[in-house]
């Protein structure tokens, strides 16, 4: 490639590293300091007296419960998406009827619907269904709003399966179910893991549906817990930032161990 190092890019990137890194440094640093230490040293001060008290406090302040609730929501959303989307994508790719292309267009249209647009009717529907302030009431719309991107990702993967393989299965006399479980699912693993990560991220980081569809402490998820903590104890910055870190730990772990699937899952947000 080009030999001359790109100094201009180097300067720009260093600046950007500063912009990205500084808030993250404050976030990690503040969380491990006591409040007096933090107030004395300022946000940029180095944590001299390391403590995990803020994290322990977070758990006793209800974050343990929020954590479990968020896990339940995330696992359920992933389960719904994994059960419903693969057969749908399989149909879209292999059944070329007019109805199917209409179905596909419906889901593509869904890509353009922001969750913000439906919170009022969603509140109405969920209340009428008696699911207000119930985790199920959060799970169902969250899963539905994940689906368009998941369909897009998975149909992309399934289109890459060559027709020869389907013909070979057909010659073997395999029925639709066998084709699905023994050919399509195994060969769609990469797309499936992307879908799982995308759905999990949407559910874990989801804020709007829990905000308008739940109320009580028992059904609070972690993002809502953060918001409440912020409005009630906004000046307890070390405790607040410890809770922020806590809410992010699972995502960071996935980032460390399944970076590829995560990055592709996030690209899913871009509908690409």
């Amino acid at each position: 490639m080009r030999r001359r190092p790109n100094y201009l890019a180097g300067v720009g990137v260093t600046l950007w590293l500063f912009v990205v890194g500084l808030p993250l440094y404050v976030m990690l640093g503040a969380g491990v300091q006591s409040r007096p230490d933090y107030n004395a040293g300022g946000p940029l001060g180095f944590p001299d007296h390391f403590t995990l008290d803020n994290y322990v406090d977070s758990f006793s302040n209800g974050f343990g419960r929020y954590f479990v609730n968020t896990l339940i929501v995330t696992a359920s959303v992933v389960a719904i998406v994994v059960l419903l989307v693969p057969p749908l994508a399989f149909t879209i790719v292999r059944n070329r009827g007019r109805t199917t292309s209409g179905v596909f267009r419906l889901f593509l249209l869904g890509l353009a619907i922001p969750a913000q647009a439906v919170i009022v009717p969603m509140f109405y529907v969920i209340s009428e269904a008696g699911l207000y302030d119930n985790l199920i009431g959060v799970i169902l719309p969250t899963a539905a709003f994940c689906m368009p991107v998941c369909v897009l990702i998975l149909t992309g993967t399934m289109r890459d399966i060559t027709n020869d393989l389907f013909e070979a299965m057909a010659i073997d006399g395999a029925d639709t179910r066998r084709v699905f479980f023994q050919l399509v699912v195994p060969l769609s693993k990469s797309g499936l893991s992307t879908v799982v990560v995308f759905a999990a991220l949407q559910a874990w980081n989801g804020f709007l549906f829990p905000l308008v569809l739940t109320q009580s402490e028992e059904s609070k998820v972690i993002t809502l817990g953060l918001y409440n903590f912020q409005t009630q104890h906004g000046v307890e910055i070390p405790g607040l930032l410890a809770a922020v870190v806590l809410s992010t730990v699972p995502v960071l772990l996935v980032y460390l161990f399944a970076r590829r699937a995560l990055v592709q899952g996030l690209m899913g947000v871009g509908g690409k």
Partner: protein
Amino acid sequence: MVSLTAPVAKDGHRPARTSGPAGPAARRRTGRPGIGWALPAVVFFALFAVVPLVLVAVLSFTTWSGLGSPEFAGFDNWVTLFHDPVMIKSLWLSVLLTVLGVVVQTPLSILLGVWAAGPQRNRAVLSAVFFVPLLLSATAVSVLWRALLDPNFGVPSQAAWLFGDGNLLGSRTGAISVLVLVSAWQFTPLHALIYQGATRAIPAVLYQAAEIDGAGRVRQFFHITLPQLRNSIITSVILMVVGGLTTFDTVLILTQGGPGTDTTISAYYMYQKAFKGFEFGAGAAIALLLVLVATAVSLVVVRVSGYDRMAGTKEGM
């Protein structure tokens, strides 16, 4: 007779859905799923995404306080909305924030994406760090920045020479700048990722040819990279527009629409009307307006750019 001609699967599975006698034509049809396979997903999606979207239109013509049943009110909500100065202001604010978002994030993310597309190892490592803001929820990002910008305990208290009294969120300009900055901080990595992928897909031949012609790095960027990124720029801008018009979490947590109503953008005003003022009909009308505006803008971007008439980036090569 029927039992003899019907195909029987050897392994005991349900026979494939074939209508005619077993032959090449019939064989091609086996393994093709019927529409029934899609049905559960379609029903689920219809119930929890399509029905609410239809209902938003219906509810916008009703008054509903959250209790009891919605009552038909004709165009009342719409008339009130278009005479509501806060509503008009919120629409302009949404547009302003969206435009500022596009203007700030597009050059940043193109530069970062093109940079990250390079094969160097250090670029891969740094890109991994740059990616972290995208992993945080919008809630976490807003809470983090609110703490960072706290006038008494945050960064402004440390650098009075730069921030003055430190109350960045107390002025209109300050609050709008913070919202634009925080969105850029969080979403630049996403758009950079789009550009990174697209840059890697540019054929290397183009650069080799340019090098032979003696084009430098800057000319290569403006004459090869940028034109080749055209489709990605459109995709990315559409995403920014839809995302910008529906910004909500950051406003709720960072500014609560203030000072006054200076950052009350439409999505936040909708939430206020519906869930704080219990005027759900008015909230639904704002929501519908937002969907229409976002869709219209996306269509305009696609039409003006000629995206819908292009076969691919390689057209004209």
